[in-house]
């Protein structure tokens, strides 16, 4: 008989006067996998916060109970709960407080299990990196470090939020093998992923959320969803918009990130830069935009370029979408309304930027840049972590740019983006 690791009986969980999830009941036994999916804003994160007892940190509440190994999560001391239930967030870098790999790992171990056994780092492929600064780790390496902490603490339930978003193919394979090992060892996995097909091989139980309610609960194979079309059509003009000639780059204290990268991009096209973790995709975009100066080589651009980072909060200048768009439209009401329609932003104009979803933030940034009259758009992971519906909406925004003859270069791990265009620049060898 399968031993029960976690039991959730959630009548309601959420934020006072805000979003709530309701009537969610499930159990997780040894060696079992529970996959939670749903559109952005469906309640996945709220549910994870309720399970991991972090909802209170965000000012939320939980009506109901979550039991880990038969004991309410509210009864555990913080270190005790973390020893049994590990949480690996979508943005793994937020889950780290240590400045070196060793200090981060040992601090967590000493809080959870009371001893620090560095050998676990080797199991996660981080041996020899104990003194390495965590700021210099790639997203994949950061996730491995969190995995090592979960392993070291001996966590029996591991909760992962969108674990594939920042991983390249190689690290995805590694993570999948890691998950298989966890299952064989009798641990339970709760995985939140907008794309359930990523985990088909683990034969998970699937819970689909919509507007805070469960709309499907059963075998993953028994559920399907219509995936919106994401293909874009370029309107190439035949002229070169961007030319990179023999670009070399290294950050201080690190080895070469880019080695002799050369390519051209046509005006009015979408080019997707793909490559492994730490291969220099973001660095390349920043160099194309002039944010970084190449150590060697030159970049030629026709027109003005704008860089939109993965978290577009760094892009905005104003506190609300309406003010941002009006500011970029130079108070021209006609242009403002045109952008609102083109990028479908009517419903969020007066929201706080910090309350916007990832997809909304990205569409707003694209719209703002469009109003700024830029010619070349450098988008960093524009669809990362988005469900199919929201990714399609971002792609519609990109299509809007292409229809206006703009040039778009995106750096991405997302295979949907790669498949959406005919122009892929694959990093390899020198890149």
């Amino acid at each position, binding site marked *: 008989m399968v031993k029960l690791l976690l039991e959730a009986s959630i009548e309601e969980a959420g934020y006072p006067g805000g979003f709530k999830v309701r009537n969610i009941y499930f159990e997780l036994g040894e060696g079992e996998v529970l996959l939670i999916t749903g559109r952005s804003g469906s309640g996945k994160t709220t549910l994870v*916060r309720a399970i991991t007892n*972090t909802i209170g*940190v*965000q000012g939320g509440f939980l009506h109901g109970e979550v039991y880990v190994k038969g004991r309410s999560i509210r009864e555990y001391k*913080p*270190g005790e*709960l*973390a020893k049994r239930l590990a*949480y690996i*967030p979508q*943005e793994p*870098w*937020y*889950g*780290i*407080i*240590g*400045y*070196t*790999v*060793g*200090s*981060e790992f*040992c*601090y*967590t171990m*000493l*809080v*959870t299990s*009371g*001893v*620090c056994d560095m050998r676990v780092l080797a199991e996660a492929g981080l041996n020899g990196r104990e*003194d*390495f*600064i*965590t*700021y210099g780790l790639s997203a994949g390496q950061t996730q491995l470090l969190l995995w090592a902490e979960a392993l070291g603490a001996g966590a029996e339930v591991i909760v992962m939020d969108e674990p594939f978003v920042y991983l390249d193919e190689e690290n995805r394979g590694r993570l999948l093998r890691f998950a298989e090992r966890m299952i064989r060892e009798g641990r339970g996995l709760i995985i939140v992923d907008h794309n359930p097909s990523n985990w088909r091989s683990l034969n998970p139980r699937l819970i689909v959320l919509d507007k805070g309610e469960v709309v499907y609960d059963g075998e993953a194979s028994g559920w399907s969803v219509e995936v919106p079309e994401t293909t874009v059509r370029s309107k190439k003009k035949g002229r070169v918009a961007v030319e990179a000639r023999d670009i070399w780059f290294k950050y*201080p*204290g690190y080895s070469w990130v880019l080695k002799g990268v050369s390519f051209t991009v046509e005006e009015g096209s979408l080019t997707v830069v793909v490559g492994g973790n730490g291969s220099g995709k973001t660095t390349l975009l*920043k160099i194309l*935009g*002039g*944010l*970084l100066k190449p150590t060697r080589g030159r970049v030629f651009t026709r027109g*003005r*370029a*704008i*860089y939109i*980072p993965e*978290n577009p*909060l*760094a*892009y*905005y*200048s104003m*506190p609300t979408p309406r003010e941002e768009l009006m500011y*970029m439209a130079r108070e021209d009401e006609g242009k403002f309304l045109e952008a609102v329609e083109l990028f479908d932003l009517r419903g969020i104009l007066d929201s706080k*930027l*910090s309350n916007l979803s990832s997809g909304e933030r990205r569409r707003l940034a694209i719209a703002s840049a469009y109003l700024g009259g*830029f010619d070349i758009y450098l988008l960093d992971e524009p669809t990362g972590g988005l469900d199919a519906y929201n990714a399609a909406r971002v792609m519609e925004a990109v299509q809007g740019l292409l229809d206006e003859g703009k040039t778009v270069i995106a750096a991405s791990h997302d295979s949907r983006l790669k498949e959406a265009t005919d122009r892929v620049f694959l990093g390899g060898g020198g890149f």
Partner: protein
Amino acid sequence: MSIIGALVGFIYRAFFLKGEEGFRLASPWVKLLFLASSIYLLTRQGLLPALANIATVLALSLIWPGLEWFTSGFIISLIPALWFSATAYVSWLLGLPGVDFTGALNILARTISISLTILFSASTISPVRLSNILLRIGAPSYYPLLVWRTMPYGMRVLLDSVEIGVMKGEKPHKRLAPAVAIMLEYGSYVEEYNWFKFEGKPAAPLPSRGSMKHTLILAVASALEIALGVLFL
């Protein structure tokens, strides 16, 4: 790259480029001895003691943290040094209270010397050892780790925001708000995902290594500075 971008880069290289290695592993007592010997040398009058201290700190910095620290540390130190010496000299040229050319050189060398000593000493602080001291006195021991972890992130965010502002044709001061917004969001997530680390307490101090080699080098440098101080008396 803007001036702010370059400055942020220099500060990053001066403080956050390296992990738990090099002179961070030297004995804390020897680090204090070196600081004291530098101060002692700087109490001697004239240009030579200041130049001797600059040479010692720069030579040590080449051993660790390395050439990138050497150039960044020197440039950061040069900024206040040039400002102080040039204004004093120009003031003198205009007939106002100030110093002549030799005096300006003296100010330049002494400011560089003080600044480099502070930068180097700060670079040799070990957040791990600091964390263990805090644990011993019952204070939250994650603070030094978190500060050394967060500062480079914050600097990168500020830099990204400023550079995007340049692309948008905005003044750098306008870009502070987006950078603050990101850091607030960062703080909120870090608090959520690491709540058990903040509310829990490590069962023991973090393991920390020592480096006899770096302790010895720093001890020799301290002895040299004290000897030079006596010589310049």
